[in-house]
């Protein structure tokens, strides 16, 4: 790629790179900006036309079909989802370990008092 530059003076090469470099960086970002300003909305619009009818807005759903869907049902669903998400039940960790507990002296475990009670 070095063959692109035929100048021998590094300074003049530097200016060439300065100007072309800046131009390319700018043009790249301008193209990106233009695309996202104009191209993307068009693309999204086209996508919407292609997939037309698949996803409806809430306002487009007719009330008639949902006549059996009462407020009670929705309340039950809402409550269960809420219960599920907030995990009303306690979940204990499955790991059980025996921990040594430090106790102060107790005569019940004392070695002094054996069965025969010999001192």
């Amino acid at each position, binding site marked *: 790629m*070095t063959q692109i*530059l035929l100048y021998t003076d590094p300074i003049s090469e530097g200016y060439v*790179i300065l100007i072309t470099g800046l131009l390319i*960086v700018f043009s*790249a970002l301008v193209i990106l900006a233009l695309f996202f300003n104009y191209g993307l909305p068009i693309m999204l619009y086209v*996508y919407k036309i292609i997939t037309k009818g698949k996803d409806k807005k809430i306002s487009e759903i007719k009330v008639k079909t949902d006549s059996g869907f009462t407020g009670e049902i929705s309340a039950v669903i809402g409550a269960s989802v809420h219960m599920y998400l907030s995990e009303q039940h306690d979940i204990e960790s499955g790991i059980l370990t025996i921990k040594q507990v430090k106790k102060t002296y107790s005569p019940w475990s004392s070695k002094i008092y054996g069965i025969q009670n010999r001192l």
Partner: protein
Amino acid sequence: MKKLIIIFSAISLLVFIRPVLGLGANIATTNSSVSTAQVDVAEEESIIDKAVDGIKTFYSYTGFANSSSGNVIMIIIGIVFIYLGIKYDYEPLLLIPIGTGVILGNIPFVAGNQTGIYETGSVLNYLYFGVVKGVYPPLIFLGIGAMTDFSSLIANPKLMLLGGAAQIGVFATFLGALYLGFNLPEAGAIGIIGGADGPTAIFLSSKLANGINILEDGTTVKNLIGPIAIAAYSYMALVPVIQPPLMRLLISKKDRKIKMKPPRAVTQKEKMIFPVVALILTLFISPSALPLLGMLFFGNLLKESGRTERLADTARTKLIDIVTILLGVTVGASTQADIFITKDSMLIFGLGAISFVIATCGGLLFAKFMNLFLKGDNKINPLIGAAGVSAVPDSARVVHHEGLKSDPSNFLLMHAMAPNVSGVIGSAIAAGIILSFLG
């Protein structure tokens, strides 16, 4: 006390045994022939002699015997880095690994034992491989991509131009380096400091100024990876110091109070399309930036696709952490005094400061220029131009703070993120261009 005595006796035992076992390299071997002749004459004396010799050899291996003023200076710099990171919170994730690395790399040692970072076979040298071959920077970019939210950029694409304007710092520094007598590839690598992007700077300098490439006139390029990386990272950490005075100088009080309208909501579809389209467009324009931009947008796609949350999570947490640790320490350690303290390094540091100033000014002035064409509600606050130098997310934060200073109800952070991330894209493209011209 008992422990102290044990430790002392163990050390003294080791010191006495050293010459006997022949560990004491040159001094011990030269003395061995003499001492055998004198065995029966003065055994008592020779043992003491040997002990003294042993201590001498041991001393000759310590850092105290080998240290030079350069090492001491660099170790102090390393400590200053760590101090800045801890005390002032200037990019501690970078400064603390680098500072430690600087200390590591400047512990004086005897050459030839595979200790130093520049000695083949040493562990540090293997870790440094990732820097020299440009392995780490793309991995860092993957993590950055998985972290970055491009939505503010998608909502307001014209802010992308600010990221381009700040790249004038790259090319101005490049020219400055040429005037100072660096050759073309070296100047290109130095210029990228103006991109204010550590990984990009390391990537480009590892390709151009790596001390391996041979120029057309037969000379080898200098190894400038260490100075360039250190300059880039330390100026990135100093963004909160460099930028505010320039902002106050160039932007009038009235302009600083401009409130921008909140960016529109961006749909998930747009967020998913962005990395794919940007990847294709930018890489068709500048294919040499492929390792950097490819990984950046790949990481972003992992984040936005919604199906690869696990991968994105690893990329933005564990992976980038691992690479940052390795990169920081090895870049720091590459500042070994005898290689680092040169006139070139000082020039690079000077140029780096200038390039940050030019880049910031470029961004600010271009934002002012853009305002000439924008009307009413669409006017942008020129302060966000300063975020066009990448330094994610520090420069955006600086812009935000400056905005708050002049108007406590003006929140610029989201707006400043747009030029900030486009600055990353811009500097990667610029690196690609420089690489394609000079590589």
